[in-house]
C-alpha cells in the first residue's frame, strides 16, 4: 500500500508519532473496528468556522470604517470566542484522542496517544474500550515498529498492540 511506502524522519519524535497516529485507522481495522470521524469532523468544522469568521471580519474591516462596523465586529468576536471556546473544551475533554471506532457489535474504542517530549522516542498509547471501561495504557519504543530507514512496520505494531489487548481480555474474563 502506498501509505506504507512513506519514509518518516527518524530524528523527529513528533514526525514518528504523527506517522504512527495516521496508521491507527488501518491497524484497528485488523481488530475489527471501523473508524468514526464524528469527533474529528466536529473539531474541523469548528476550526473552519473560526477561520471563516475571522476572514469575513477582515473583509468588513477593509471595506468599512471602525464606527460603521462596530456592531458587526462585536458580534463576530463573540461568535469567534464561542467557537474557539467550544473547540478548546472538546480538546480538553478528549485530550490526545487520535482515534475513535466501533466494532460490529457497537463496542466503542477510544485511543489517545502522546510522547513525553521531543527527546524521548517512546510512543505512549492509551486504549479505552467503551462500556466496560477497560483500559490499556502502555508504551512502545519507536524502534520496535520503525525500521532503520524509517518505514512503518504495520504487522509488528499490530502484534505489539494485540499482545496488550490479550492481557486485558484475560483479566476481564
Amino acid at each position, binding site marked *: 500500500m502506498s501509505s506504507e511506502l512513506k519514509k518518516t524522519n527518524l530524528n523527529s519524535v513528533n514526525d514518528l508519532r504523527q506517522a504512527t497516529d495516521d496508521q491507527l485507522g488501518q491497524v484497528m481495522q485488523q481488530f475489527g473496528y471501523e473508524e468514526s470521524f464524528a469527533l474529528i*469532523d466536529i473539531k*474541523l468544522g469548528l*476550526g*473552519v468556522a473560526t*477561520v471563516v469568521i*475571522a476572514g469575513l471580519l477582515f473583509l468588513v474591516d477593509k471595506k468599512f470604517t471602525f464606527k460603521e462596523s462596530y456592531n458587526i465586529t462585536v458580534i463576530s468576536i463573540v461568535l469567534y470566542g464561542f467557537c474557539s471556546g467550544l473547540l478548546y473544551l472538546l480538546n480538553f475533554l478528549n485530550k490526545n484522542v487520535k482515534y475513535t471506532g466501533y466494532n460490529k457489535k457497537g463496542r466503542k474504542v477510544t485511543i489517545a496517544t502522546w510522547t513525553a517530549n521531543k527527546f524521548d522516542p517512546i510512543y505512549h498509547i492509551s486504549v479505552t474500550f467503551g462500556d466496560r471501561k477497560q483500559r490499556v495504557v502502555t508504551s512502545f519504543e519507536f524502534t520496535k515498529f520503525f525500521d532503520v530507514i524509517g518505514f512503518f512496520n504495520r504487522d509488528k505494531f499490530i502484534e505489539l498492540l494485540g499482545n496488550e489487548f490479550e492481557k486485558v481480555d484475560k483479566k476481564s474474563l
Partner: protein
Amino acid sequence: MNLRQQITQFLTLAYVFSSAFVAWKTLGIVTNSHSPIVVVLSGSMEPAFQRGDILFLWNRDKQQKVGDIVVYEIEGKSIPIVHRVLREHHNSEKQLLLTKGDNNAVDDLSLYAKKQSYLNRKEDLIGTVKGYLPFIGYITILISENIYFKYGLLGLVGLSSVFFE
C-alpha cells in the same frame, strides 16, 4: 493525503493569522479605538515621547482634561497625531479641543483641516494615551523608512526558516 489532513494543515496555518487578527480587533473593541496601539512618528512631543515609542490608547473616557495627551486623526490625512490638550470647551453633549505638541512653538490650528478650528472629541479622537513603552516601536520606523533594513530583515527571516525548524 486525505481531505481531513489537508484541512488540518490549512487550519494550523490559518490559525496564526486569524487569531492574531481577532485579538487585535478585540483590543480595538475593548478600547473603542480603531488602532489601540500606535508608534510615535515625530519628535513633536519631546521630551515626553521620542520617535519610536509605543503608546497604548483608551477611548472610553467621557471627557478629556486639559493636559491629557490624545491621539487624533484629521479627515483626509491618514497619519495619527499625538499631541497634548491645550484648551477644551464642553457642554453636556460634546467637547471641543485645541491641541499642541510640547515641542512645537505654536498650537495645531495649522494642522487641522481647512476651516476646522477645533477637534471634536467624539469624531476625531483615536484615544487618550494611558501607557507607553520607550523605543521598541522604532523597528516599524526602520522598516517603513529604510529600504535596506526592510529587505535585510526579510532576508534574515527567510534564512532563519531554512536553519531552524
